[in-house]
């Protein structure tokens, strides 16, 4: 039960995004994938959910090669996967309860009362109890992100994929979301891959952190290992020092 990417390449037209990406997320762990904007972090996540197909390479979830799965099996796999979108991607015309129920209705096997209970329970987990009848437009940015998380966990998935769950949030809401991510791991035992460029969040929620640079993972380690890394690209990123990156790029170009 893990997520595995090997030698994944992906280009959009002439723009090469992933250039041989290797990544492994072990069962039950939370791995944060960090990197610059446009580095291909969200593209990586979409490959895992089967929303994009790699040009080359292997994407495996639960031992199954995602791009090769027939539609029905892909949908079965997705039922075990929760995806938290960067801007929540809630359906505007539906209430929060309807947003959460949609996946459960599709999954089937639950009565209306069970669905209602599961919706209430999921909203309670993200501290949005009583928000069932609100529309997404009536929620703040942080509440919308939490509602998006509630929708992802309503399935009780084995995997949670978070696409920048704390971007654009104030520090307090960021801490609330970080605690929720830890709570999901503790209470639901999920395997999580978190896309972020917020190093504070990455240190507090991750078992391991991987840094994506120019379409490849250039360093993976525990938060302490990443803090102590000597890799100039990683150092430049975590310290927010563009000069370190430029010097490392110049050195790499010379060699």
């Amino acid at each position, binding site marked *: 039960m893990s997520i595995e990417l090997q030698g994944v390449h992906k280009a959009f037209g002439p723009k090469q995004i992933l250039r041989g990406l290797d990544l492994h997320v072990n069962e039950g762990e939370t791995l944060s994938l960090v990197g610059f904007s446009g580095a291909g972090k969200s593209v990586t996540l979409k490959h895992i959910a089967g929303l994009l197909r790699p040009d080359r390479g292997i994407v495996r979830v639960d031992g199954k090669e995602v791009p090769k799965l027939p539609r029905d099996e892909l*949908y*079965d796999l997705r039922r075990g996967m929760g995806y938290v979108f960067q801007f929540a991607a809630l359906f505007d015309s539906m209430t929060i309860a309807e947003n959460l129920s949609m996946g459960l209705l599709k999954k089937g096997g639950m009565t209306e009362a069970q669905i209602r209970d599961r919706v209430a329970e999921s909203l309670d987990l993200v501290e949005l109890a009583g928000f069932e009848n609100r529309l997404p437009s009536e929620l703040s940015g942080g509440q919308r992100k939490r509602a998006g998380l509630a929708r992802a966990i309503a399935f009780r998935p084995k995997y949670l994929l978070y696409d920048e769950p704390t971007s654009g949030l104030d520090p307090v809401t960021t801490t609330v979301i970080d605690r929720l991510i830890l709570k999901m791991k503790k209470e639901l035992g999920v395997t999580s891959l978190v896309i972020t460029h917020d190093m504070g969040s990455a240190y507090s929620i991750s078992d391991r952190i991987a840094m994506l640079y120019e379409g490849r993972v250039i360093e993976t380690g525990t938060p302490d290992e990443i803090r102590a890394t000597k890799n100039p690209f990683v150092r430049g990123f975590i310290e927010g020092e563009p000069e370190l990156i430029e010097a490392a790029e110049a050195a790499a170009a010379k060699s």
Partner: protein
Amino acid sequence: MHWTQPFAAIGAAVLGMFSGLGVFGRFCLETARATFDLRTWGPLLVIQMRRLGVDSLPIALFLAVFTGIVLALQASYTFTGAIPLYFVGTLVGKTMMLELGPVLAGLALSGRIGANIAAELGTMRVSEQIDALETMAYDPMAYLVVPRILAGILMFPIIVVFANTVGIIAGWITAINMLDMSTEQFVRGLRLFYVPFDITYSVIKSLSFGLVITLIGCYQGFNTMGGAEGVGAAATRAVVVAGMLILALDAFWAMVLL
């Protein structure tokens, strides 16, 4: 400028055109495949029939009323002194059923329905709502595209039949109130060259227009890129392309069926 540049530009344009056709062909095949997923699109069909069909009826009838009035007055103006006045009924009936009923409703509704679908699906695309549907194991083609296209195909002929009827009634009221014609004269003209095929022809045309408007709207919405600007561009393309196809189909059906 290097002498090969014009050739490169032509080559790129041709490749782009074929690539676009390929993407559109694939979209049509995916739509056809999704029609088998009745469980997903079935419950949504009636909602779309109301949204795309019933809610579009007022604008189609509004157009039909004024078209009927103008047809009766222009026919009378053209015929005076040369052709018996009861031919006003013939012209109003034939023109409404064969041409103006379906085509004017088609062009008006390509704006209302086509742009609406493209903007709605385009917004869902750029805000990742379509991706969200996929992650919840919904087939977006079955959930979003199939009910809209089927609603268009089913409702458009009904709208056009109503529009034809209202247009003819408007022409009749105009004739008896403004043209010194009796109801008998108008009905005599209306029935003179009427054949049941006129209605069949009108329905066949409107079926194809309903398909084109919804299919192009869905295709443009699904392939929206960028933010608000991309959504606006998709809505505009949906109206322009559907309008052009409606006129091309209009000529095609005239050549094939008349």
